[in-house]
């Protein structure tokens, strides 16, 4: 309770105090105007105080309105409702107040006018005239009686003033008679009770007047009396005819108390009426002014109260708006202060509770999302680093994701087509090589829930590849299937390795099983020719020679072939050492130098070429095989050109390129060009490039083929640097 009172005093105290004081001041002013003379001295001070108070309230109101305007400009929450309610309340209060003011003002004017009606004024005027005439008559009568009596007792006064004044007083019925000479010296006086108190002499002006033989008679008020006491003063000149000396006689006559009272009453009433009639206009102005101040005070106080009340009312709304704004910006940590425990307070408490719950739920969702994100990244990293190509599709067979391995295997980047269907992806020219592959894959999606495997030959720019493709559906939350996953492995190298192993085995068997009988066959053929040559006729002799020669030639060929297979199968262990690659290549190129030949072997060597870890003899065989292969490829060219180029690939390896300007290798041969016995040439063993590849593999290097029809062929070999050269 005390806190409520404290809050009220804090918010409304000063307005209440000031308004109360101003109201009291206005009441006092109103009382003063209605002739409360006890406070009359304070009227001007109260007037200024009231003006000041209203002025202060006006300033406060202007300031408050200005603050409201600034808040409106800043779009402070709740300001619009504050302004609207304030305007409404002002209108609701202002209109009745203005109406009351109008009628009150009219009543004041009419009322004040009615105070001063003509009849009252005439009656008071008549009463005043009546009293004045009565008193004038009495004064005149007193003068006349005094003059006549003085005329009768003139001699007595001159001879015996004391007796004279006594007789005169008795004859006139005067209150007091005094006798002066013109020097204002009292000669004699008479009072009813024989008092020794000297009479009040006429003033200098009266003596002067009387000296000029002018009589004086007037009603005067006795000075010093506590109650206004009026009397008639008559002053007449007397001249002693004997000695011709002027004297002054003063007689005072009492006015009956009833006449005095009536006179006073009429005078007072008339005076007050006159005063009021004069003050009619100022009084109206003053009352109108007070009424105006009351109106202003009422309106100002009401508006200030209303604004404060509406602001108090809107404060929880403002608080809630602030909270919702913060939440809309994502700040769920905000907690609104609960200042009052009313319905709004409960609302704010509920709001805080709701915010807290939302924040908690949001944190949990965030955590979940974060974990899912981590999991997703984890899986993405795994998928991305898989050597198997992975492509995921949605239910409508639109590409969702694909990893790098897929790009490498398919020899194309389908990332720009994420969100597009497979058919749309392969419709572009760049991806048309995928159409056949995907046309064989997509039918498997028609049977959801079934895993499927497929091994497929796939031709692309990198050459012919053999792919092992696995397919599966992806489980969904709402549906059984949310999409598909295609996992593909490039098993070309594996197949090639298997072939290589098989060919090695074949080579070993050939070397073992065929090589041994070849020499006896050759020797037998030679011996047969030697033994039978001379015993046969010319015709048969010639036939024998041709046949034995054929056997010997074919045996030689077979020996060469078997030797090649032996070399392929039984290659010695590589002995890696620091090798100056440029020197090796230069020495080999020099061997092929023949100015008369229609071909030319050129070396384009990088002078900064570092040492490599290699077996010199094996590399020599590699280059011989490649040069030989190139020479065979360019034998139909007018001027064959074979270039061997060395360059530093990066900090870890060097690149050796052996290029020719031959007809190039067809696309479909590229994959098996390194396979044993993969030659389309009439001569040769078909093991030259297979040996080359084997030597490269033994040096932990890589070999690539770059060839296009009529553009020549390049073999690109990358060999690692020695560890010292790397450093």
């Amino acid at each position: 309770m005390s806190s409520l009172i404290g809050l009220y005093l804090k918010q409304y105290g000063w307005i209440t105090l000031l308004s109360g004081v101003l109201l009291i001041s206005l009441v006092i002013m109103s009382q003063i105007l209605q002739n409360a003379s006890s406070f009359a001295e304070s009227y001007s001070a109260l007037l200024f105080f009231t003006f000041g108070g209203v002025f202060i309230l006006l300033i406060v109101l202007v300031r408050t309105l200005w603050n409201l305007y600034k808040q409106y400009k800043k779009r402070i929450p709740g300001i619009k409702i504050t302004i609207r309610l304030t305007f409404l309340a002002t209108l609701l209060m202002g209109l009745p107040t203005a109406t009351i003011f109008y009628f009150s003002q009219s009543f004041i004017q009419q009322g004040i006018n009615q105070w001063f009606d003509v009849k009252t004024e005439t009656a008071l005027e008549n009463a005043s005239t009546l009293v004045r005439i009565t008193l004038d008559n009495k004064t005149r009568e007193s003068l006349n009686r005094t003059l006549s009596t003085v005329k009768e007792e003139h001699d007595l006064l001159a001879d015996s003033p004391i007796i004279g004044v006594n007789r005169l007083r008795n004859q006139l019925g005067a209150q007091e008679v005094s006798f002066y000479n013109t020097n204002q010296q009292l000669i004699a006086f008479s009072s009813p009770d024989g008092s020794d108190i000297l009479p009040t002499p006429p003033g200098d002006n009266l003596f002067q007047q009387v000296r000029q033989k002018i009589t004086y008679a007037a009603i005067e008020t006795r000075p010093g009396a506590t109650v206004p006491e009026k009397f008639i003063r008559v002053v007449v000149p007397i001249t002693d005819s004997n000695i011709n000396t002027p004297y002054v006689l003063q007689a005072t006559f009492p006015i009956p108390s009833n006449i005095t009272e009536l006179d006073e009453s009429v005078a007072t009433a008339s005076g007050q009426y006159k005063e009021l009639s004069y003050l009619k206009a100022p009084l109206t102005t003053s009352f109108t002014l007070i009424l105006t101040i009351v109106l202003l005070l009422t309106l100002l106080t009401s508006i200030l109260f209303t604004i404060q009340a509406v602001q108090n009312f809107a404060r929880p709304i403002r608080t809630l708006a602030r909270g919702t704004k913060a939440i809309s910006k994502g700040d769920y940590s905000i907690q609104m202060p609960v200042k009052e425990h009313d319905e709004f307070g409960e609302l704010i408490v509920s709001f805080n509770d709701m915010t807290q719950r939302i924040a908690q739920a949001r944190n949990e969702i965030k955590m979940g999302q974060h974990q899912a994100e981590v999991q997703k990244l984890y899986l993405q990293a795994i998928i991305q680093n898989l050597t198997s190509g992975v492509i995921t599709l949605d239910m409508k067979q639109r590409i969702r994701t694909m990893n790098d391995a897929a790009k490498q295997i398919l020899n194309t980047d389908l990332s720009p087509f994420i969100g597009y269907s497979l058919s749309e992806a392969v419709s572009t020219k760049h991806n048309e090589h995928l159409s056949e592959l995907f046309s064989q894959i997509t039918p498997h999606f028609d049977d959801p829930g079934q895993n499927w495997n497929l091994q497929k030959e796939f031709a692309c720019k990198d050459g012919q590849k053999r792919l092992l493709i696995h397919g599966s559906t992806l489980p969904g939350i709402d549906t059984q299937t949310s999409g598909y996953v295609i996992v593909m492995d490039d098993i070309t190298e594996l197949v090639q390795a298997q072939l290589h192993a098989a060919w090695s085995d074949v080579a070993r068997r050939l070397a073992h099983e065929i090589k041994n009988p070849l020499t006896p066959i050759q020797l037998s053929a030679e011996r047969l020719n030697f033994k039978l040559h001379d015993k046969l006729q010319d015709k048969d002799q010639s036939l024998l020679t041709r046949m034995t020669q054929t056997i010997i030639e074919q045996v030689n060929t077979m020996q060469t072939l078997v030797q090649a297979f032996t070399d392929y199968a039984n290659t010695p262990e590589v002995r890696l050492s620091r090798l100056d690659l440029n020197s090796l290549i230069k020495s080999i190129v020099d061997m092929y130098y023949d100015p008369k030949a229609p071909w030319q072997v050129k070396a384009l060597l990088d002078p900064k070429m570092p040492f490599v870890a290699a077996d010199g003899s094996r590399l020599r065989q590699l280059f011989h095989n490649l040069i030989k292969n190139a020479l065979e490829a360019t034998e139909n060219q007018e001027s064959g050109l074979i270039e061997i180029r060395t360059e530093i690939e990066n900090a870890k390896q060097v690149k050796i390129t052996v290029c020719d300007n031959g007809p190039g290798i067809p696309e479909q041969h590229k994959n098996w060009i390194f396979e044993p016995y993969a030659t389309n040439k009439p001569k040769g063993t078909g093991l030259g490039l297979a040996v080359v590849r084997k030597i490269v593999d033994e040096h932990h290097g890589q070999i690539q083929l770059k060839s296009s029809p009529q553009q020549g062929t390049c073999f690109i070999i990358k060999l690692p640097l020695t560890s010292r050269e790397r450093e």
Partner: protein
Amino acid sequence: MEQSARSFCFWSTFGKNLRAGLGIFLLLCLSCAGWASDEILIVRVSDYQNQRELLIDSESKFHLPEKVTAAIHHEIPLLFTTTIVLTESASFLGIKYQRTRRTIEYQTQLYAYGVNHHYVLYNTRNQNVQSFPTLDAALETLGTLQSFPIATLSELHPQQRYTIKMRIKLDYWKLPAPLIIDAMMDSDWRINSGWFETFLKTPQSWQ
């Protein structure tokens, strides 16, 4: 904490507003004060000495506006304030200065009264009441000073130079309450003779 700060801020603002308001009132008051008009003209102030006392005679003329005369006729009491200031001019180390030796201020109330319509002067200084049959007579008396004692000669120095200043003004703050607003608005009510200043001749005769 925020509430108290807001409360302090409010009282600070309230204080500023109050000061501004009071400043305007003071300005208004100052504008009302010191107004000189020709409704009262101090014609003469003369000094002389009698029985070792400095006396003055003075004569003033009143030409009251019709509105004020009408107010008197309607028995509105008017309070005139007469102020007489005796100042001494002196110098100390070549620096001239003035000091007030005597200030005499008294009020005289003028009002009409009674069915005979007498005009009464009531001097608040000596409680004298004097009635006059006409307003002019009352105003003449109001504006006349005869043998008015200012100071004893022992209080004054014959070598110094003295100045007498005199002013008669209507104290309109003492008018009846309804008239005060009218008096504030209407210059007719601001009746003030202004300061009439004369040098004292009497000290020369002390020699």
